[in-house]
């Protein structure tokens, strides 16, 4: 057992016992990763804020019944993903939420003012990620960005190991294609602006 695993095991024991220090430590350790996952899934800060709350509430309520061998991060990602799926289902029934969900899915990419600070490449990468299908995006975010083991990621997504690898491979190709398009568009705009400026 690695040191990280032992630490996680201690946290799970603490959560089962009702130790609030364990909860604080788990929250501090995993909140940014869960939030990053939710933000990249939904593309919106307000949605990610709400789902973050729901995710941690669900963990807190389930804490007394956690199994001893629970691994916290995959469990948190599973809860977060279920919350996101549930949110998406309700969005379909609620027209106002659906409209707002489809309209501005761009809280992840830096705003134009912040774009100068972040590298243009990072902005393009974040935009391309947002344009992927939900299936492709969640697989890439879990494995490539959050660094989850592929076996754990497959469990979080409720698919087999082989299916995950296929999905990753497709997602990677799709991401590359989107990035190429976005970068080409980015090159065309300044060129057009320059032409406009000279005439």
């Amino acid at each position: 057992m690695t040191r990280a695993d032992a630490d996680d095991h201690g946290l799970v024991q603490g959560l089962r016992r009702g130790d609030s220090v364990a909860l604080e430590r788990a929250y501090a350790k995993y909140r940014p990763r869960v939030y990053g996952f939710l933000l990249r899934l939904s593309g919106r800060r307000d949605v990610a804020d709400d789902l973050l709350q729901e995710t941690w509430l669900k963990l807190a309520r389930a804490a007394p019944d956690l199994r001893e061998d629970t691994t916290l991060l995959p469990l948190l990602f599973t809860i977060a993903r279920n919350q996101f799926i549930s949110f998406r289902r309700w969005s379909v029934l609620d027209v106002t939420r659906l409209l707002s969900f489809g309209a501005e899915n761009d809280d992840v990419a830096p705003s134009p003012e912040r774009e100068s600070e972040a590298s243009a490449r990072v902005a393009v990468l974040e935009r391309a990620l947002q344009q992927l299908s939900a299936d492709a995006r969640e697989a890439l975010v879990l494995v490539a960005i959050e660094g989850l083991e592929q076996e754990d990621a497959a469990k979080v997504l409720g698919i087999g190991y082989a299916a995950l690898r296929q999905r990753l491979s497709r997602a990677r190709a799709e991401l590359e294609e989107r990035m190429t398009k976005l970068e080409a568009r980015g090159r065309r705009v300044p060129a057009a602006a320059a032409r406009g400026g000279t005439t």
Partner: protein
Amino acid sequence: MKRDIEPKSRDHARTPRETPDPAAADDALLRELRALPARDADADVAERVRRGTADAFDAAHDASGSAWRRMLGLTARALPPLVVVGTVSIYLAWAVSTANALFGQ
């Protein structure tokens, strides 16, 4: 509740490793993805979620600690199937005895 949140997988038994691993391939795009900046909630949101979580955590442990509540939960879970089994048994007994009375001998 537990069933709701536990990770689901359809084929845990299969873990083939012979095909090339797309995510392990250390190409530039995956390196860039790994290097994307971490995103975190605003401080006020993080604090609000932390407080809500701590309250729910305490409530969950208080509820699970009370023997009376545990007994109540157990009874509530066992009651519906017992009612169904009881109803079906009474109906079957009635149906058999009625059939016997009508067509017996």
